[in-house]
């Protein structure tokens, strides 16, 4: 209950302040957001797009965490958690790709142009797709759990090449790439004013709580389903 109320307040605040606060070139009052050259009003996407991308990675790591636990314990409840996290990750990954593509259309002029960031989110999508096609190809429950766990761990050790290394070392259009005139590195370090940071981190926390809530709902539903199947 506390979780739901906190989540409701946080998300409402993020939506109201993230979209509603005015932007000015020389911010004076606490409520004025700075104008970032080249991004302007389009910078507001950072409050929503970055948390979804963040969640698609968090979900991926959660899935890997439960995959390792499954391989150690051979307890099918861990497999339920692993696949539930992957399912949510796929959803947030699609959301991040779509919001990013719409933003790219207005900022760069086309929906898709293989910026290193776009390549990395595309790979993440492919991995989620491969993970679920592998799961659908195996009938026996234990075998499916083992194989998909192994695959998600293998994917998790190769994905950092994309998410964390490549976008920073390759020149690209995405804010924070190599060649960005204001420097490569996390955007929060050098482009955001304190009030933007407050909204941004509130949004990250809110989305993480949202993930936590959706994850526990999915796990409970899947466990009830598994329980019912066992009883016939």
């Amino acid at each position, binding site marked *: 209950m506390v979780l739901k109320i906190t989540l409701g307040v946080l998300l409402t605040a993020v939506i109201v302040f993230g979209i509603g606060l005015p932007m000015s070139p020389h911010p004076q009052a606490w409520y004025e957001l700075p104008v970032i050259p080249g991004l302007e009003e389009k910078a507001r996407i950072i409050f929503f797009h970055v948390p979804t991308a963040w969640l698609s990675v968090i979900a991926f790591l959660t899935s890997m965490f439960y995959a390792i636990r499954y391989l150690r314990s051979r307890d099918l409840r861990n497999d339920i958690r692993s696949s539930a996290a992957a399912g949510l990750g796929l959803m947030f990954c699609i959301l991040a790709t779509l919001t990013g593509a719409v933003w790219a259309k207005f900022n760069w002029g086309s929906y898709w142009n293989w910026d290193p960031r776009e390549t990395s989110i595309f790979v993440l999508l492919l991995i989620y797709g491969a993970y679920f096609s*592998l799961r659908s*190809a195996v009938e026996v429950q234990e*075998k499916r759990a083992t*194989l998909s766990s192994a695959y998600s761990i*293998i*994917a998790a050790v190769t994905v950092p090449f994309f998410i964390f290394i490549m976008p920073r070392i390759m020149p690209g259009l995405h804010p924070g790439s190599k060649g960005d005139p204001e420097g490569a590195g996390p955007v929060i370090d050098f482009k955001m004013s304190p009030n933007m940071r407050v909204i941004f981190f509130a949004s990250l926390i809110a989305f993480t709580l949202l993930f936590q809530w959706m994850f526990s709902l999915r796990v409970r539903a899947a466990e009830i389903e598994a329980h019912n199947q066992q009883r016939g």
Partner: protein
Amino acid sequence: MPPGKAPAGALLRSVRTVFLKDWRSELRTRYAVSALLMFVVTTIAIILFSLGSEGASSDALDGMLWVVIFFAAMSGLSRTFVMEEERGTTLTLQLAAPPAAVFFGKLLFNLVLVTGINAVTVLLYALFINGFVIRTVSIFAVTVALGSIALAAASTIIAAIIARANTRGTLYPVLSFPIMLPLLLSVIEATRKASEGAFFAEAGGEFQLLISYIVVVVVSSSMLFEYIWKD
């Protein structure tokens, strides 16, 4: 001897035995080698036909070489594990050798296979495709060598997964592609540098990426293999 507890010398001997077993059975049928060779020849012929008398840009040809190599690997490298399932010899092999020996033996076999096939592919590609020019041979040689090792490493563990699933053929490239993309992107970039005539040191970043990729994939798959291999 309990698996995993074997001393290093005994493990190396069983790795060699598994490798020799695969090697001999391959020599008997020559299935993988002939299938792979025919695949490479067909693909290069298709590229030649589709290009016709038109030349393609050097960048496109550099990338196309790795398209041929990737799909050749996808058509033949799952064989080592799928073969055991089809013949029903998985159980015997599980009893006869520790998982680590099976994994490294198969990895070695795939490595030999993929290195040989890549050498032939590169040779045919350089002979028949006009416009494919390598100016810095040292970069290209290291790229093909590291690329072959990385390709063998990633494809062996995916093959082990795929052999246990029901649909073997179609799923193999689907599962392999996202895992292999870091490797493909860096070998393509390095090949481009080789054909532009860059200095050896300029490809250092790609080589570092490839070496760390190989280490990460081999270490993690040798740890995971035991779980996949034993039901």
